[in-house]
């Protein structure tokens, strides 16, 4: 079995004939912490969904641990953190119930919840510091806490590779720092991480590789680009005049803007 977590070659995705990804080559090796960066609408969220097989490719191919998504079966190796909580359900669910559902890929039908399941859920709750809220309905938590629930759900599955879609978007500073600490620990444990981000913020020291997506293509792939000049100033608001953007260039900054 291949140990390469993801391998996409010439990946294309189109929504209703409109191209969103226009030929992406991306290989994620074990132990990497890859940040997919780019402006809104650049296609970075579509890319993670395509990597997982949630969005079908219209061209090219992609492999998860050496197999196409449709024939991949070791889903316990993947821990997915979607962009927002979809516990839109009309029925309340406790934090513990949602976190425990992260074990589903490891559980067999008709098999009762094992002590290993319970231990993993308890550890995941502890990691995001929600042990005290385990019995509360998820719906009663704040946005940042709900994001932590989703991260804990992925942690509970004890996967090899984490895929996180905008884990820092709209989340308070405490949660961002907590996420950075959690990621650092995962890296020490030899885990692989692919995360989508608009801005890296406190995650920056952990990220080993930055892939900038622009207009559905890889615009930069290598060391995570560091903000320079005004952009590096704390509290700087990113406002770039997009009208003056050149069509394409080999060197681009961390948000896809020209350096």
């Amino acid at each position: 079995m291949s140990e390469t977590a993801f391998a996409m070659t010439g990946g294309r995705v189109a929504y209703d004939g409109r191209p969103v990804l226009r030929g992406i080559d991306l290989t994620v090796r074990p132990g990497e912490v890859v940040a997919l960066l780019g402006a809104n609408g650049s296609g970075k969220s579509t890319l993670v969904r395509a990597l997982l097989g949630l969005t079908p490719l219209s061209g090219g191919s992609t492999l998860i641990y050496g197999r196409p998504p449709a024939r991949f079966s070791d889903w316990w190796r993947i821990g997915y953190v979607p962009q927002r909580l979809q516990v839109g359900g009309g029925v309340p669910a406790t934090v513990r119930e949602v976190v425990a559902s992260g074990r589903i890929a490891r559980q067999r039908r008709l098999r009762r919840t094992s002590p290993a399941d319970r231990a993993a859920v308890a550890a995941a709750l502890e990691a995001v510091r929600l042990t005290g809220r385990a019995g509360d309905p998820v719906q009663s938590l704040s946005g940042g806490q709900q994001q932590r629930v989703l991260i804990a759900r992925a942690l509970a599955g004890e996967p090899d590779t984490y895929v996180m879609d905008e884990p820092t978007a709209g989340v308070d500073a405490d949660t961002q720092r907590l996420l950075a600490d959690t990621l650092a620990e995962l890296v020490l444990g030899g885990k692989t991480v692919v995360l989508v981000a608009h801005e890296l913020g406190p995650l920056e020291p952990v990220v080993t590789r930055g892939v900038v997506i622009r207009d559905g293509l890889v615009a930069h792939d290598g060391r995570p680009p560091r903000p320079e000049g005004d952009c590096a100033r704390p509290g700087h608001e990113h406002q770039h005049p997009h009208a003056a953007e050149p069509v394409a260039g080999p060197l681009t900054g961390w948000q896809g803007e020209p350096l």
Partner: protein
Amino acid sequence: MIVELLQEQLFQLALVAALLVGLCAPAVGTFIVQRRLSLLGDGIGHVALTGVALGFLTGTTPVLTAVIVSVAGAVAIELVRARGRTSGDVALALLFYGGIAGGVLLMAVSPGGSNAKLNSYLFGAIASVTPADIWVIAALAVAVIGVVLVFGRELFVLCQDEEMARASGLPVRFLSLLIAVTAALTVVIAMRVVGLLLVSALMVIPVATSQQLTRGFRATMASAMVFGVLASVGGLLASTVSAKVPPGAAIVLIALAGFVLALVVGRFVRRGRSDEESRVGPTMRVEEVV
């Protein structure tokens, strides 16, 4: 009086039917409400009427044809839903109207059909339940509870977050069809007790009632099943007091009364809880969810 009633075979059969419906409908209903498909039961109920009428027309057991047609209808509804087109909403509406109109027409032209028979399926006729019906209802109930026990964990993930279910490698299409088919079976079980037009009430109201008082999914399902049994048996008993009380309507009204009561009790319970938590510390803020 109840002791005498219990000795009557007719009442025994009715009681068994009421118990099974009270257990099954809220169990399936919890998943359906979680998936925000509360009206699925109504839709299937409309389609099932055509199935019942087909039974009368062809001289077969209406319950059997109702199972076949409502399962087919449920599969059709799920396929339309999964395509996620905006026109799906209209397609479903068309299916529902077709179901009722087809049922009424077929019933009118079938040899054994009459308005009284039509009414007994639309609004339920628990007193006319036969031992054969009970066997069918019991078999379907075992199937429904079996699905919940075997696939419950997966169905929870599916109904809560379909994308997550996909990224966990769950057979999403199979599970979606499974929940739709299970709902169809539940509709047929409940059809003789509360009637096709009120079937959905027993799938939704007990769930709505219990979520006023519970915080988790499992707890909601368990207490919804208790409320379901209380309502269905309560309604049956109410109908024995006077022959004028239709059991189906009585069951639904008792369930609704329970909901209103839970709404009031839930307010107090929640208020008590937030007081308790606000004393723990300022960071433990609990938003009031209504």
